[in-house]
């Protein structure tokens, strides 16, 4: 692994909520270009880790260097601009807005927000808009062609599965360097999960060097698509390695199944 570039370097990262320690001196690395699986029982700190990485939570102590810069103390906006995009465990889409609206906001950093541009240069706006329609259409075509037909319908009329697809598209539109997926398969059937994952890998192959971190409970998804896994328990890393390595790790078995009693 020594030839791999480190994208994120986490050192002694601690996050406390009152008396609860969600991340307890966490140490781990994310390498550039890999697909990393994040595993662990419920409440082991996986989502908290994502929230710290994206700036939504301010960690209590420690550091998390993303491309050499500490994300602690940065705003979510700054972190997004440096190329980190994510999805949420519980879908966070704007329900009254259309599929197009929800996806296009993913590339907020490249839109022109000027008053003059938006109000008076409608021709230039139209050109920018048309380019975005094409981009969104291309992305939707990969994930679910039927959604292309309905891209100007409000999101509230779509099923949970489609909403997850829309959320993934929103995160991918800005062509991020680091994509954080928080249980994208929750509520999906086996086949749907497989389809979604293949689509994500498909997009990833077109984006150069996209790194993906995936929180997932479905073991066969982890087995199929991750290069490496990290297992959390009580806010600490208890194991890391390939899928085969971690599944045979006694620490992991204890965390999931409990201590063997004699």
């Amino acid at each position, binding site marked *: 692994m020594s030839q791999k570039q480190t994208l994120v370097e986490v050192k002694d990262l601690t996050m406390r909520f009152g008396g609860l320690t969600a991340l307890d001196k966490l140490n781990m690395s994310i390498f550039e270009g890999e697909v990393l699986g994040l595993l662990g029982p419920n409440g082991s700190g996986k989502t908290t880790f994502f929230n710290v990485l994206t700036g939504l939570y301010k960690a209590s102590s420690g550091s998390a260097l993303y491309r050499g810069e500490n994300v602690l103390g940065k*705003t979510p906006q700054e972190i997004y601009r440096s190329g980190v995009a994510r999805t949420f465990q519980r879908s966070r*889409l704007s329900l009254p807005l259309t599929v197009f609206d929800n996806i296009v*906001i993913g590339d907020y950093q490249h839109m022109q927000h000027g008053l003059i541009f938006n109000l008076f240069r409608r021709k230039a706006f139209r050109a920018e*808009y048309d380019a975005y329609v094409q981009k969104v259409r291309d992305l939707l075509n990969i994930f679910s062609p039927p959604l292309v037909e309905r891209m*100007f319908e*409000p999101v509230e009329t779509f099923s949970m599965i489609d909403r997850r697809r829309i959320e993934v598209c929103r995160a991918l539109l800005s062509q991020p360097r680091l994509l954080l997926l928080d249980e994208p398969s929750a509520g999906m059937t086996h086949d749907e999960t497989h389809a979604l994952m293949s689509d994500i890998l498909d997009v990833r192959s077109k984006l150069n060097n996209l790194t993906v971190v995936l929180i997932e409970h479905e073991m066969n998804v982890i087995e199929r698509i991750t290069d490496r896994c990290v297992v959390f328990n009580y806010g600490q890393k208890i194991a890391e390695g390939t899928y085969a390595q971690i599944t045979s790790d006694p620490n992991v078995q204890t965390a999931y199944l409990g201590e063997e009693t004699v």
Partner: protein
Amino acid sequence: MTRPIRNPAMVLALVSIATTIYMWLFLHAETQIGIAILLAVAAIVVVIARKTGIAGRIEAAGARRPGLAQIWAAGSTLALIALFYDQHFVLLMICAVLLYTTAGLGLTLQFGFSGVANFAGAAFFGIGAYATAVLATHTGIPHLLIVVISGLIAAVIGSVLITPVLRTRGHYAALVTIAFGILFKTFIEVNDVLGGPQGLQVPGMKLFGHSLNEPFSIFGHEASFYVSYAVLSLVVCGGIFLIVKALERSWIGLSMDVVRTDETAAATFGLHIARWKVIAFMMGNFFAGIAGSVYGMLTGFVAPNNFTFADSLLMLSIVILGGLGNAVGLIPAAVIVLVLPEKLQFIQEYRFLFYAALVIVILLFRPDGLLPRKTRLFFSQETSR
């Protein structure tokens, strides 16, 4: 049954002409029986139009040809102004509807788009009117410029509220604006420089050397001086309507909507929550200030009692009754809220009871307002896809 009309241009023409005739009859009606019949007709027509799907077709026609619909709306208003050219009171009501709609457009930007509830709409309207009274009395600045400056003053004074509004959410932010509205009224009342409770005179508007307060005659008919103000109000209202509509169909409107619906997701995708709320809040107050400025010149007099908390509520109820976030809905809502109580004078104090009951009934059957906001389409051509 006759073949339904499919041509949107034809639908819009028929609806506009019918509405104009109806409004002409309604504004004319003075007898109890006349008004009762007209209200009944309106209720029946609305119910039939909804049941037969005609209402849907009208909405579709408006969505297909928004530009044409706007021209018809402006034309119908001009026709009404022309029809009532010598009736002060009716023209005053038309002006009030147009200017309250303008202030409502500002509140739509704040509440409907970015989710900042402003319960001090009348205060910002009042700041515009007071600024105009002072500037027009004591300076020689051209009046058209005074209108713009008054709007800017409303926006700047409103900016003292930005920090408390941004630090609080939902009901608490609303409370901040309520407090400001009361503060404004009390401040004016105790301030002798601004006339105290007696208020101030506002000089009439002069446009390019022509005084709007002088009656003029067309084709030998003496026209009310309110005609000029009504046309001016229409221009102001129409201009700001176009700006708000363009904002809605731009990245700015989209950003504001995303900020309103999910602040966490918005921040994760780089949106500066504060930035968009501040822009919406200041622009909204700017529009309310402009409306207040014209209103002040039109009435010739401003007093603290014209800008109470009750007036702020009236403005907000127009915004909500029309359909939160929908600029088009403001107009019928403003007519119901402002004109109907005047037309119900004959039942004296019962008119407020009737009017309040009507508002409740409307919201009972249309919980999202008269014309709920439609899903955004940046360009109307997308509908044909």
